[in-house]
């Protein structure tokens, strides 16, 4: 079977262009979802198969020289730094929670007629979702995961790993979902500086795929933000749970003539090696900025020293 003979090609090309525009319009109207769902469902096994090959290729390309060993060592150290950073977040949050509970205890003692019930701050339903593909262009940053509406995934759900925030679900099929990464320039997340509770907006930075830095913008000039400060989700707006780690401030830019200051953030998640993610199907929306500002000094900067062997 041959495809279009030469004499019919101008007509065929016109038809193809019209079809592509029609697909774009139907997609925007939401009419194309069943077809996309079916097609992506059909080729998803191919993605999984190719993943095995790509993981092998990744190992192969990384295994030629000592650079690989150094790379692994850097990764190990980075993981340790991440763990320490996360531990310091936990300790800091426990301190804050402790202070808050003491306040609440005092409140209860001074109001004995109140019936107060403790509640979990964040209810997580940790479905592990495997990353089966990434956006095909250099322009945008999406991943495809193998969990969809059949598993209870919905558009807008936050996505994270134990290391920190990854992004949010933007479209869902039966057994797949597309996730906009927080490193995409079009992404924005309400955030808070852990030590001072200064608020800002974390956005992705335009650049190559190795540049996974983020930037926190719109931090008021009067608020303190320093290199090494940990940046967490604030929960403001209800799109993300509060207290998910985003990253660590690596550079602060402050000009007297500006209303706001901004800082570069190195995310705790390694976006170049995402394999499994957690989709938060349910959480209690709350705003960390409504909580009392911590009184102690800022959180300790994570040390670069490896943790002692057990």
């Amino acid at each position: 079977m041959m495809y279009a003979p030469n004499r019919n090609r101008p007509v065929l090309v016109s038809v193809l262009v019209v079809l592509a525009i029609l697909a774009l319009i139907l997609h925007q109207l939401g009419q194309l979802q069943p077809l996309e769902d079916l097609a992506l469902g059909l080729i998803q096994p191919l993605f999984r198969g190719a993943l095995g090959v790509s993981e092998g290729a990744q190992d192969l390309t990384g295994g030629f020289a000592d650079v690989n060993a150094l790379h692994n060592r850097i990764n190990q150290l980075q993981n340790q730094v991440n763990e320490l950073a996360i531990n310091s977040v936990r300790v800091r949050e426990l301190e804050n929670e402790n202070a808050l509970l003491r306040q609440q205890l005092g409140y209860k003692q001074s109001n004995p007629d109140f019936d107060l019930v403790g509640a979990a701050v964040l209810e997580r339903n940790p479905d592990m979702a495997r990353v089966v593909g990434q956006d095909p262009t250099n322009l945008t940053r999406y991943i495809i995961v193998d969990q969809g509406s059949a598993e209870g995934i919905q558009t807008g759900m936050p996505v994270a790993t134990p290391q920190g925030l990854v992004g949010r679900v933007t479209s869902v099929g039966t057994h797949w979902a597309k996730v906009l990464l927080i490193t995409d320039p079009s992404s924005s997340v309400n955030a808070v500086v852990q030590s001072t509770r200064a608020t800002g907006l974390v956005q992705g930075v335009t650049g190559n795929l190795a540049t996974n830095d983020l930037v926190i913008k719109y931090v008021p000039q009067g608020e303190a933000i320093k290199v090494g400060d940990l940046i967490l989700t604030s929960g403001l707006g209800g799109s993300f749970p509060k207290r998910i780690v985003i990253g660590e401030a690596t550079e602060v830019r402050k000009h007297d003539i500006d209303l706001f200051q901004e800082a570069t953030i190195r995310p705790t998640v390694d976006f170049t090696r995402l394999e499994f993610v957690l989709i938060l199907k349910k959480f209690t929306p709350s705003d960390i900025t409504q909580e009392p500002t911590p009184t102690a000094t800022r959180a300790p900067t994570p040390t670069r020293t490896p943790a002692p062997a057990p």
Partner: protein
Amino acid sequence: MTLWLLIPFLLLVAVVQITLLPRIPVLGYRPDLALIVVVAQGLVGTPGSAAQWGFIVGLFLDLGSGLPFGIQALVLTAIGLLMDLGQAIFFRGNVIAPPLAMISATLVYDILILAILTLFSWSIDWGDYLLLVILPAAILNTLVLPLVYFPLQWLRRGTRPQLEI
């Protein structure tokens, strides 16, 4: 190449671009394999076929893209059409045609996508995108082009005359 071979081939190209290439970026960039294949087909293939290749591989890419469905198909069809026109007017037999075509095609491809996204109310920092993403990607695509161009040329020469590539 018959449709029965063409469709699996272009599906494979899309799958490689979505799954394999993101894992082995070159200096932080991944080659736009589908675009390279369409450009190479425009350079060595049957006149008028690149647009069809662009449409088919674009549809497959749309499935793996977070962008609105149809953008890749539309843009790659347009690139294929431009390549077909360029081949008829300028490209065939010209030594500088392949790198020139690849750089131009990458610029048009990325700028068209960003222009469409702008229509969808995306906020685009054009300067940063041009300098930090599009130009380096154009250079990388040009460097990768021979890996696709010569096999396709060989395939075309080795195919029976009654079959079109």
